[in-house]
């Protein structure tokens, strides 16, 4: 694990000491090399690596680590345009925020101890907040940053208390030793509150439907790298945390999870329906994130092997797809300076290659077979059907509405008559094409070998 963390830390001096014209190239190359290191985790036996007391890797951890490492070069590619007019120290500051976030994320995903996980979980909030409030586009970003910070913070403070209580009662919060824990959580008021304390932080982060207010604000007001990292990774922190914490909460989860399952089923349908009426492109993608993550919450709370696998695949698939959609929305925004969907219509006539990326992004968003999105959704829906037959109504309806709004997004931006005011925008740069390809290629390749992300022996 050190082979990933140390190079990421060293990216900071690399970037600050590089010349201005080499800055982007250096950071890009460094981050790509680091992501190649994470790919080496695929070749470990059982996907596990337990060489250290503090950091380890696991079939649950390794796909998320790979996603995190893969996303940093993509974020750096995406931000080159909107930082163009900033001075060099400011650009370097921005990239340092991204790198700092990356360090905390890598350490979060590979932490052995739950307290270490918690500390780094909170640490990720700070650079994200700075990115949203300092480099966002509109005055509402202050509001967005506050919502983001305080929702997550308020949710996670009970988690700290709960974790400390468990530490004192169990003796150790090491993830590997929790699996041989024999103490069971019985139904009692204290244990209920303990359960809630553990899970609420992650519910807010996911986000669960009733606690999701921060997400549309934060995603829309954040600059592109902020949106990408929020959608792709930070939401998955919540689900990763849930998956790590639930082994110590058995068998209480069967009883306590019921209201949250209902909320996530209802929230899926509600947020998908909101997507149908959005006029702002980024807002649409943000709400679709909430909808997909509601499926993941559902999967994790049901706690069957199939559903946990489905959750994992959905996490990776959604991370890549959502990030790709945000990059596409950003390429629109940089050309037209407006996020409204009605100003960029009929683009297929003008930019066929861009239309290809939009098509692929929207098809994966609506979980077209044989993409990994479908595999995740399929496993989740099957598991939830066997948990209760009635859930198929919600999940089925959600799949329908997801297809509706994804196609609506596609047809309103690509098909139809071209808007007059976009007829002289520049086509996609090579950098942007690379960005889209680097998002799409993992999705397509993973379709061929999904067992890497299937988390089969957690």
């Amino acid at each position, binding site marked *: 694990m050190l082979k990933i963390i140390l190079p990421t830390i060293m990216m900071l001096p690399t970037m600050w000491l590089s010349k201005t014209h080499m800055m982007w190239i250096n950071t890009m190359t460094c981050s790509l090399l680091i992501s190649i290191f994470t790919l080496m985790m695929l070749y470990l036996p059982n996907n596990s690596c337990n060489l250290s007391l503090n950091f380890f890797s696991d079939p649950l951890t390794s796909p998320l680590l790979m996603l995190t490492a893969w996303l940093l070069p993509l974020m750096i590619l995406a931000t080159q345009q909107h930082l163009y007019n900033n001075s060099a120290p400011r650009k370097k500051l921005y990239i340092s925020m991204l790198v700092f976030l990356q360090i905390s994320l890598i350490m979060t995903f590979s932490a052995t101890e739950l307290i270490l996980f918690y500390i780094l979980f909170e640490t990720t909030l700070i650079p994200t907040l700075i990115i949203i*409030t300092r480099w966002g*586009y*509109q*005055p*509402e*970003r*202050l*509001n967005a940053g*506050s919502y983001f910070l305080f929702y997550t913070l308020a949710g996670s403070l009970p988690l700290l208390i709960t974790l400390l209580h468990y530490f004192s009662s169990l003796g150790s919060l090491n993830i590997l030793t929790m699996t041989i824990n024999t103490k069971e959580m019985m139904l009692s008021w204290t244990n209920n509150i303990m359960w809630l304390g553990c899970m609420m932080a992650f519910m807010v982060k996911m986000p669960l439907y009733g606690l999701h207010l921060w997400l549309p604000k934060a995603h829309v007001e954040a600059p592109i790298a902020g949106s990408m990292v929020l959608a792709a990774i930070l939401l998955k922190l919540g689900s990763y945390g849930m998956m790590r914490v639930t082994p110590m909460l058995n068998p209480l989860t069967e009883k306590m999870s019921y209201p949250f399952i209902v909320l996530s089923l209802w929230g899926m349908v509600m947020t998908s329906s909101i997507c149908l*009426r*959005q*006029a*702002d492109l980024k807002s649409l993608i943000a709400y679709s994130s909430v909808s997909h993550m509601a499926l993941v919450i559902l999967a994790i709370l049901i706690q069957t092997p199939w559903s946990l696998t489905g959750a994992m695949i959905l996490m990776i698939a959604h991370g890549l797809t959502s990030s790709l959609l945000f990059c596409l929305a950003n390429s629109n925004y940089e050309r*037209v*300076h*407006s996020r*409204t*969907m*009605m*100003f960029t*219509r009929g683009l297929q006539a003008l930019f066929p290659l861009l239309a290809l990326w939009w098509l692929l992004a929207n098809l994966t968003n609506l979980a077209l077979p044989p993409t990994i999105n479908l595999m995740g959704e399929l496993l989740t829906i099957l598991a939830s059907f066997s948990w209760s037959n009635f859930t198929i109504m919600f999940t089925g309806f959600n799949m329908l509405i997801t297809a509706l709004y994804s196609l609506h997004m596609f047809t309103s931006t690509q098909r139809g*008559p*071209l*808007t*007059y*005011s*976009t*007829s*002289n925008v520049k086509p996609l740069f090579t950098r942007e094409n690379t960005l889209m390809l680097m998002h799409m290629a993992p999705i397509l390749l993973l379709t061929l070998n999904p067992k890497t992300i299937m988390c089969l022996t957690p």
Partner: protein
Amino acid sequence: MLPRVLSLGVRRGPLTRRPGTLRGGFSLDWEEKLSEIKKKIQSVLPGTSLHPLYDSSHLPPDHSDVVIVGGGVLGLSVAYWLKKLEKQRGALRVLVVERDLTYSQASSALSLGGIHQQFSLPENIHLSLFSASFLRNINEHLAVVDAPPLDLQFNPLGYLWLASEKDAAAMENNVKVQRQEGAKVCLMSPDQLRNKFPWINTEGVALASYGMEDEGWFDPWCLLQGLRRKVQSMGVLFCQGEVTRESELVKMDNSVEYQPVECALVINAAGAWSAQIAALAGIGKGPPDTLQGTKLPVEPRKRYVYVWHCPQGPGLESPLVADTSGTYFRREGLGSNYLGGRSPTEEEEPDPENLEVDHDFFQDKVWPHLAQRVPAFETLKVQNAWAGYYDYNTFDQNGVVGPHPLVVNMFFATGFSGHGLQQAPGVGRAVAEMILEGRFQTINLDSFLFSRFYLGEKIQEDNII
């Protein structure tokens, strides 16, 4: 920013002693200081504009989807239709920038307020018909919750155009076109004229056309305020400022502060000053006789309006009479007052530098024609006069509507040369449709696009006063 901060500090020196105050005790204007502090705190709260050091609530927002330059009746009409025709509520963020919120020089406020359908171009006729039906139902269109209904004071007395021998054939043709398009106009011979309007001297008049429905005059200030109230209730932001520099972004000047506004579309509804805004966007910067080098041919022209009192005058039944010489007048109110004027010829064009009124123009150029046409006007007494600008299109005196072929995100709604007010609702709708749908839907204004200046296709309108 800095002057503002300083001004709070230097208002009172430390050593001035106000009566009734002790050094270090409560001073008399504690209330004012408290409200200043409260205002400052409010402007720093989350959700408001991100300038923690100073209050920027008077500045426009950093981003807006559409910026409308010019807050007159055309600009407000475009804002209204954009908000009305957007597919989802709140989908578009619209900002209207107006330099002078008192509208002291705006053509909309100084206008005569007439509306008629007696044009020779079908598009103009349709625009006026649309506007007439809009004005008829104005209290349904511009209704705001809890606000009183608008009283437009529409006087439906019609327009009476008089034609001499040589213009009679053209007038007959025009009336045929107008009737075809749906305007209700009738032709009158000199005898019928004398019958209906006994105060007219029909010497030199061969034919007259009289509009019978949807023509007359109304209060333009009421329309302006009604539109303003309505668009503000629909969520359009207003800002007082002047657009000064433009690259991709629109920058504005408020005293010495400026605020760049990032936007996707700019609508030029600046009336008489539209040419300056177009020049900022780079329209006209290029070799002559090319599309880049074609400037926007709209310039301000000063026109005078005189108010006179004549107790023996035409009385209540008088329509807006447009004489063969170009002189026009109409009744104003119920106290035997009349408004009128005349468009000067090219040689006698007054200097549009300021809005000073030339009273000699009335004595020499307007009164003789008035007295000749209406003998009762020989004994009139001028009460008042004002001057206003026409956003005069030197190319063909018709409006410019729609996008520019090269600067694709600037739309025009200007250059109407004196009939902008009456066509404002229609033009607003046309521009909104062009933006939202991509083409004109209700009224086809393809012949009013900018490209006609480059292609040299004039669309001549005969009935301009």
